[in-house]
């Protein structure tokens, strides 16, 4: 999976996701589409993608393993993967790159990379978008640009989302507000991440672009880099500062978190994320020689705890079985095993 690969600044920026939305002329947007229209669009997109080296799959024909894969690969929603609406995916051989058909728009090109490499993420998605635009009649006007089903993405049709782990900023008084204001200046917005169970994910934030009109794609990418620089700098300063001033507290919490995650037999998502947050805070700035832990394992832990398909399932396992399974998964990763 793409998230297991190395990425720049992965200790702060977990992932960067680009979504380019395009619609085909002559059809209503997916929320207003009939089943026949949906089938037509699925067929047309599949045909257009014939020469693009993409594999077509229908969501309603997928088994649970394949759905779990898409859930992690593109951060698709559980409800979307299990709905009866006629939707589909085009999967690229490049991990983290694909097309979701009949979701919010007819074509949503999704490109995900680990870390902060926004340029690679954008370029891959844009190359696919150009090919679709060349082979299909895409909805576009000179006034509004690419027409999308949501007003917020009309124009470039580009949504850029970064998942950030900010334990340092979160634990520094007033730093979140300072960062949120700073980010606003670049026309971005930062919101705390909420898990699918409704609880806050400790230290995890989502950063997304607001403007899709009045800016070029180049400007969005440039602004992203500036925002990334600011965030990484601020986060590292905060982590360093906390670890220097409250060394004994951070060390204590770090090793407690390490111990609990290594030996727990049942654990809830919110608790696990709070503990991982302490690991992230201390990893670079305190003496961690007694703990056998590296960034790869911390990132894997974060990903597996945050995105777990069987966890998101409404039916299936009972809550206590879920927490046991989660604890086992975490223990395996802590030991350095190959948790799936």
């Amino acid at each position, binding site marked *: 999976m793409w998230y297991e690969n190395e990425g720049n600044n992965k200790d702060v920026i977990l992932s960067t996701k680009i979504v380019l939305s395009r619609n085909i002329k002559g059809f209503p947007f997916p929320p207003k589409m009939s089943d026949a229209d949906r089938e037509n669009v699925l067929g047309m997109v599949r045909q257009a993608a014939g020469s693009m080296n993409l594999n077509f799959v229908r969501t309603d024909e997928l088994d649970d393993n394949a759905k779990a894969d898409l859930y992690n690969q593109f951060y698709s929603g559980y409800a979307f993967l299990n709905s009866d609406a006629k939707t589909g995916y085009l999967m690229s051989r490049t991990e983290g790159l694909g097309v979701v058909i009949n979701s919010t728009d007819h074509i949503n090109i999704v490109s995900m990379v680990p870390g902060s490499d926004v340029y690679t993420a954008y370029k891959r998605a844009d*190359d696919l978008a150009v090919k679709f635009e060349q082979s299909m009649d895409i909805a576009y006007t*000179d006034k509004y640009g690419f027409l999308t089903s949501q007003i917020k993405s009309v124009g470039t049709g580009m949504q850029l989302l970064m998942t950030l782990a900010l334990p340092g900023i979160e634990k520094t008084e007033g730093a979140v507000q300072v960062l949120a204001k700073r980010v606003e200046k670049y026309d971005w917005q930062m919101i705390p991440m909420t898990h699918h169970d409704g609880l806050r994910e400790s230290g995890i934030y989502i950063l997304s672009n607001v403007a899709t009109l009045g800016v*070029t794609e180049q400007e969005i990418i440039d602004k992203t880099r500036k925002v990334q620089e600011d965030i990484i700098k601020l986060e590292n300063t905060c982590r360093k500062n906390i670890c220097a001033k409250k060394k004994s507290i951070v060390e204590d919490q770090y090793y407690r978190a390490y111990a609990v995650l290594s030996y727990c037999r049942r654990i809830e998502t919110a608790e696990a994320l709070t503990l991982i947050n302490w690991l992230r805070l201390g990893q670079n700035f305190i003496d961690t020689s007694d703990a056998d832990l590296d960034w790869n394992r911390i990132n894997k832990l974060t990903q597996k705890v945050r995105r777990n398909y069987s966890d998101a399932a409404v039916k299936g396992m009972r809550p206590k079985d879920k927490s046991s399974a989660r604890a086992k998964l975490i223990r395996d990763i802590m030991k350095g095993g190959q948790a799936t």
Partner: protein
Amino acid sequence: MRCSRCGSQIGNSYVRFNGVLLCDSCARDLKIDEVFRRQNALFDQAFPMLDEFPGVFSSGSDLDFANAKIRCPRCGTTLRELESGGQLGCIECYNTFNESITKNILKLQGSSEYMGRKPAQASEIEASEAPVQEAEPEKKTEPKAAAKPAAKAEAKAEAKTEDILAKVKDADLSELTDKEIEDAMKKAAEVEDYALAVKLRDELKSRKGEN
């Protein structure tokens, strides 16, 4: 506590009206308790008060549902749906709700002018971005890379610029032509010698003023 009208002892039930304490029976006599009784009646009867303000409700509904009447002829999306969720139903909606969309976009994004790339045109980001990534280290090593032809040409041009500037600095400005001064001014601005550039600009201005 005693009733301020009849002076009897007040039990659990009393009415305070404009700061005056009244017992239950006096309040009933003065018909002050009617307001309170009607509130109690609310719980006993289903919607007893509703028929008393039909006018208020109908005028309210006119305002509330005005947006629901404006529909996209093609997909049936109402203006109200658009304004509450920012969701459009089809491409035709962009024509039907043009005014509202522009207003909403301005509110959301601060601009309604499209500046992105045209469809099916490859993005130019690669071309303009590559130098941004590599320019910084290259800039630093530029003097060392003089062996390359491009670098040679640049070095020559630089040397020429320096010559011109040295000449202008030493020379009496009145001996130079307008064009020479203008060229030198541009060159001075390029190499960030702003003092010289300003001096030359003033000279040009004064000459134009004389003519």
